Every structure is written in structure tokens, then in C-alpha cells.
């Protein structure tokens, strides 16, 4: 394989990234579209992720703004989930995973060595692909986060927090009579909303969702999508999805990833009617081999 401009332009994984490096890389290939957001909450600049020697994410820059849903789409293995998991350092648990570049939450570098990852994860919550409630009661599922973080002073406050969280997740009416029953006994869609309630119980600023509806039926999916739209009022949301229609439905901005590159970012309306990059268009129109 011949050395491409991209490989030349890429900074060494450990070395500092210089402006010249950036320029070289940009000149070769850059993300199409505006990566910035007027009210940026999370700012990512030139993020590289390596699994051992393999580079999974190449110089990705993207903002996640206040009160917006950013969806990340792309074929399997394009790095969208990897990128999402960088945002609250869930990749830390994967051995051999290395992240370079800047990821900042409200101006604070989340990869700062001095930064504690536990409060970060309270600020940047995550909802996973498969609904994964703890095998405990519904109440305990929601109360767990506030309890370990000491968010409430007494039982009454905790009860209230559990109720508001479940209400926000649109689950309260369905489960208020059976809070002591195991969360695993709920239906798939309810479980996922329980997981969302669990996440918002610790009052995060950003919610990351990793294919939250891939295990759900269309009706449950619709409920979650409606919920996402409501949550947008208070949170910033980044969602990875395999369903382009879902990205089109729930997000304000869409980012298209391809083989670790962020190919194109744009208003969702524009991405789905008139994408600028050939790869984006091929993916969106179902022309991908």
C-alpha cells in the first residue's frame, strides 16, 4: 500500500498536533459542512482514537450544542459509536484504546489527567443499545445514580427525584403502582425509557444515546423518539443510529461518518435532501455496497 497524503499528514499518535499538521490534513480532506454549533456545549477538535495500532477515528471535529440533537450515522465500523463513547470516556474501559485531541465539556477538557471520570459520567449520561436496567426494582434503578452521587438529602427528596425522572422519561404513569417490581420485567421500550430515566436522574448536561431503539419495535421506537424531542428542551443529545429515518426524524444536525472520518456535517434537512459529499449521498440513498 502506498503512503497517502492522509498518512503523511497525520500527526504521530503521541506527539503534539501542530497547526501545520492540521493544515496539511485539511488540505487533503476535510469534513464538509459546519462542524460548529452556536451554543456549543461539547467541543471536539481533531479527535483521534486508536485501538492498539489501528486508528478508529481520524481527526474528527464536531460540536454538540445546547438544546440540540446531533445524530451520527454511517455504515458499521465507521467509528460513530467509538466517537460517542469518547465523549464520556466510556472507552477508558477498553484495553488498548487511546484518545488524542481535544474534547471539552463547557470548556473543560474531559481527557485532562486531573479530571475525575466519575463526575464526568454524571454530567454526560449514556443510554445504550440494549436496554440494560439493573436487575433491581424500578425505583432502585432510578435511585441508584442519585444515591451514589449523594444528590438528595433524605428519602422524600429521593422519592421526588425518582418521580420527576420517571415523569420526564414518560414512564411514571405506567409504573407508578409497581415501583418495587424488577425493572427487567418491563417491556423493551419501557426498559429503555427506564434507562433514560436512570440517566436523567443524575441531572446530566449531555445525554449520549448509542442506537437506543435498535432493539425496539416501531411503536416503542416512536415513543422514545418523542421523548428525545422533549428532552431536547433541557439537554444536549448526541445519538448514534443505524436508522437514517430515525436520524432524519429526531435530530437537528446530522454527522456522517465513514471509515473513521467525519465526512459531512450539516443541518439534518440539508443532509437528507441535498448532501454535498458523494459518500454521504450514497449512504443516505442506499447505494452503499
Amino acid at each position: 500500500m502506498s503512503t497517502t497524503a492522509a498518512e503523511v499528514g497525520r500527526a504521530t499518535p503521541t506527539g503534539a498536533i501542530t497547526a501545520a499538521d492540521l493544515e496539511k490534513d485539511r488540505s487533503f480532506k476535510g469534513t464538509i459542512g459546519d462542524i460548529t454549533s452556536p451554543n456549543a456545549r461539547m467541543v471536539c477538535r481533531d479527535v483521534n482514537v486508536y485501538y492498539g495500532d489501528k486508528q478508529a477515528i481520524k481527526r474528527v471535529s464536531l460540536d454538540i450544542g445546547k438544546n440540540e440533537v446531533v445524530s451520527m450515522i454511517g455504515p458499521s465500523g465507521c467509528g460513530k459509536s467509538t466517537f460517542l463513547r469518547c465523549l464520556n470516556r466510556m472507552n477508558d474501559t477498553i484495553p488498548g484504546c487511546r484518545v488524542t485531541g481535544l474534547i471539552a465539556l463547557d470548556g473543560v477538557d474531559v481527557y485532562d489527567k486531573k479530571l475525575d471520570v466519575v463526575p464526568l459520567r454524571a454530567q454526560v449520561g449514556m443510554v445504550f443499545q440494549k436496554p440494560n436496567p439493573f436487575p433491581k426494582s424500578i425505583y432502585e434503578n432510578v435511585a441508584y445514580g442519585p444515591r451514589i452521587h449523594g444528590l438528595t438529602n433524605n428519602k422524600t427528596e429521593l422519592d421526588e427525584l425518582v418521580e420527576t425522572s420517571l415523569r420526564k422519561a414518560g414512564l411514571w404513569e405506567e409504573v407508578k403502582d409497581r415501583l418495587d417490581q424488577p425493572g427487567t420485567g418491563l417491556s423493551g421500550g419501557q426498559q429503555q425509557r427506564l434507562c433514560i430515566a436512570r440517566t436523567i436522574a443524575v441531572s446530566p448536561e449531555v445525554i449520549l444515546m448509542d442506537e437506543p431503539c435498535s432493539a425496539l419495535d416501531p411503536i416503542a421506537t416512536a415513543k422514545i423518539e418523542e421523548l428525545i424531542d422533549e428532552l431536547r428542551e433541557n439537554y444536549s443529545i448526541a445519538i448514534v443510529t443505524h436508522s437514517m429515518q430515525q436520524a432524519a426524524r429526531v435530530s437537528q444536525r446530522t454527522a456522517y461518518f465513514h471509515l473513521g472520518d467525519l465526512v459531512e456535517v450539516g443541518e439534518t434537512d440539508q443532509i437528507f435532501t441535498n448532501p454535498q459529499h458523494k459518500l454521504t449521498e450514497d449512504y443516505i440513498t442506499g447505494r452503499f455496497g
Partner: protein
Amino acid sequence: MSDDVTRGHTVRRYDEELGKVRGLVLEMGEYALEQLGSAVQALITGDATLARRVVDKERRLDLFELDTDEAIFNLIAKRQPAAVDLRLIIALSKATGDLERSGDKANQIAWCTIRLLEREGQQPPAKLLHHVRSLHGMSSTMLERALEALSKTDVDLALDVFEGGKRLDEEFDAALRHLMTFVMEDVTLVGLVLDMVFALRALERVGDHAGNIAEQVIFVAQGRDVRYQNKEILIEALRRRKAS
């Protein structure tokens, strides 16, 4: 823009369905052109039978439109087209309307011919038909080009159509002024001249429809909606962009 926009889907049935809709629209365009040709032919040769046949065949075009709309409807429901596919579908849907109305114009010319022949009992003098001939040539060329541009998603051809539209307008103005001189010379010709103006107006409208289709071609190719824009500026902008 050599790539066929309907091709390349992972689901090949999608290719087929998209291609089928476009085929229907192109076929409909051919038919509209044929109708227009026959109508003008009937007018020029004073062939009432041919004119009646054009009127009879008008129904076919309506059926074409219904078929196309249904195919588009199904395709949207089943495939949820996005990006270029979506633009193509929308463009085809709009082109169908333009073609149907072009067909209507042929119909109008045919009726005009029938009325004229019944009233006058003979074909109009050749001097009055000159402009019909030239305007028909221009508008049908435009429509042909627009259809070709649609089939190939060819921006250059679409730009040609715009330019043709400019010339058509000039030609129409010139024709009107010329026909006015006949009326001034001989007032008895006023009925005939009005019929001619009516036919010319229909042909000019066909040119407009061709222009609409060309606008849709640009929408498909570039995702830009260029309706209601100054075409001269547009042509210049697109040519310049292409050159750079």
C-alpha cells in the same frame, strides 16, 4: 454527470422502480411531443381529421399522468427516497404536470384548428403560418432537450433549454408584431390572426413548460431550487462554476 442517477442502489428493485418512473415520464414526453407535432401539422395543412385525432388521443396523456403519479406514490411509500433519489422523484412528479399541460396545449391548437377550418372552410394563408412553424420548431426542440436533460441529468442541456427559452420569447414578440401588421393591412384577417396568436401563445407556453422541466433537472443534479430566478444570471453562474 455521466452516471445514471437511478442506478447503484443496494436494492436493485429500487433501481428498477426509479428507472420505470423516469421511463414513464420520458415516454409521456415523447407522446406530448408527438401530439404537439400532429396538432401543428393539422393547423398548417388544414387537416381537420388529424386535428380530431389529436383531440381523441389527449385522453392517453391523462392516463400517462395517472400511471406516473401512482408509481411515484408507491415508490415514496415503499422506499422513502432521500437526497438525490428524493429530488429525482419530486422532479419527475413536477415534470409530469408540465408534460400533461404541454399535451393540453397541443389539444388547444387542435381545437383551434378545427374551429378555424369550420369557420373559414379552408386552411389559413401560408404567410400567417410561418411563425407557427418556427415557434413549433423552437418549443419542440426545447422540450426534447429538456427531456434528454432529464433522462441524463445533464445540467448543460438544461442550460441550453433556458437559452432556447430566451430566444423563444423574442421570437414570440417578433411574431406578434409581425401578425399585427397583417391586421393593419387587412382588418378582415383579424379572426384568423387571433387564432394564430392563440396557437403561438400555446407553443410559447410549451416552451415555458420545457423550461420548468429544465429547472427540475438542475434541482436533481445540484439540489438547488432555481425556479423564479433570473435565468440569465443563473446561466452565467452555473457556467462559471463549471468552468472553475
